[in-house]
């Protein structure tokens, strides 16, 4: 624990919207530092003139007709909601 962790774990956990326990923070910080250390290997490569790959077999301009189709009815789409009422998700109040 002498070195400062590479990852600001509080900031990243907040961005990821995951509440971590102190034990998890400590464990993940050191594990992720060793993973990032391994990943730094990529800096050995000069990729200045290399195009990035987003899709291994490039597909361009995927279109379809703009037609309405039958989709899931609201009642079906809401079936897995943890809380629902009157065809809507129930969420806690966020404004005063």
């Amino acid at each position: 624990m002498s070195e400062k962790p590479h990852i600001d774990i509080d900031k990243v956990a907040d961005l990821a919207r995951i509440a971590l326990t102190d034990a998890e923070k400590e464990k993940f910080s050191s594990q992720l530092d060793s993973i990032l250390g391994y990943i730094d290997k990529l800096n050995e490569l000069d990729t200045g003139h290399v195009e990035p790959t987003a899709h291994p077999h490039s597909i361009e301009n995927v279109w379809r007709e703009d037609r309405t189709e039958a989709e899931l009815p609201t009642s079906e789409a809401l079936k897995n909601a943890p809380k629902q009422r009157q065809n809507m998700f129930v969420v806690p109040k966020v404004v005063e």
Partner: protein
Amino acid sequence: MSQDLHYKSAAALASLLDSKEISSVELTQAIIDRTQAVDDRVNAFNSFDAEDALSQATQSDERRSQGGALGPLDGIPVGIKDVLAVKGQPLTCSSKILENFVSPYDATCIENLKRSGAVLWGRLNMDEFAMGSSTENSATKTTSNPWNLDCVPGGSSGGSAAAVSAGEAPIALGSDTGGSIRQPASHCGVVGLKPTYGRVSRYGLAAFASSLDQVGPMGRTVQDVAELLQAISGYDRRDSTSYKIDVPDFPGAIERLKGKKWIFGLPKEYFAQAGSAAPLAAVEEAIAYYRSIGCEFKEISLPHTEYAVATYYIVATAEASSNLARYDGIRYTHRAEAFDGKDSVDIYHQSRAEGFGEEVKRRVILGTYVLSSGYYDAYYLKAQKTRTLIRQDFENAFQEVDAILAPTSPNPAFKKGTHTEDPLSMYLSDIYTISANLAGIPGLSVPCGYADGLPVGLQIIGKPFHEEDLVAIGHTFESAHSYCDEHPDL
């Protein structure tokens, strides 16, 4: 009769069904009986609905008796990895966050499978959200390797591989993001194929890393795997990354390409690294077999191999952090009871903390970090560029060779608990399978022998959309050996 059925191939079962020697109801009952007899030890299934399977089997028998069987899979039970949507069935991804989720629709590959008349059978265990190589990251249960119950089945499709190996399903669907079909197939002594990226629709597959994920077939013979691939393949307008390309006759390729003198590449980076690795002896015997029937071998180089694992863990975790943002505690997941009502986002923090397991948290955190402001170019963009170099390595190699032979995994199945505290060492066990996902090319694992009494697989990596070659090459080896008839003692 019925206790013999569980280790017959799907092809053999199809001819028994066709000749009316058995019914699909008898077959499905035999599979249910087998599952009930062994699954308390194997733990391959998260859940199954025997009544529902028997009712699908009854419908298949009715079709057949009226002369309307839908094809070679009609009436054959197919196990389903718990990552694919089947309307009205649970879909948990082996995660607490989806423990009560019931699919409102069918995945496209499931729709296709239903059209083939197959009996959809159970929900197979996996590493949570397919993140892992041992199925130990499941929030549901730990699956055992049927060959040695103290060992892992591999992962993430460990439930699928174990079920097929243990006779709890003749064939099964898995998904492969970095080796998740091929590695467990190798560890459990079964056949597994990762198709070319874009061959099978991902619509209805719970996304892990969208640019790497592919659904694929597992079975005890290459022909069965080819038959299942046939049923699920094809362009789907609901998956904009699926590819508009003809679907050839995969099972027919076995006859059509029989006797072809293939030119194989042996990547020197794979074999140099393998060193004294246990599976190497069996893989080298397989190579000697192909040589003995007149195939040609060339040493090839895939110079960026050593960067594949690092590239993968950037691309896969970045995409996962984005994909898993949908599990928010609001719309269709577990919601925490206790959260800070004054903080408008704390409900997300708490629901995700309760719902996700450790490996998922670790990867979402890593993925969030590599995509975060100031780091995008250094990590994600860099990895996408390295990915281009890895893809080009294969393009260059395939100018000279038809396919590449390699071990599927650097080790046979390991004991449970071996890597659970050291994620990096677990990640490195995917070293031979990850590159095919980064390059988007197909790979097949076929049982080729044993190391330390556990099965090991030969990996055959092919050109994009050349799954026919893989099937023909794999079948050539399989038909000259008896591995597909060797089963674990359970």
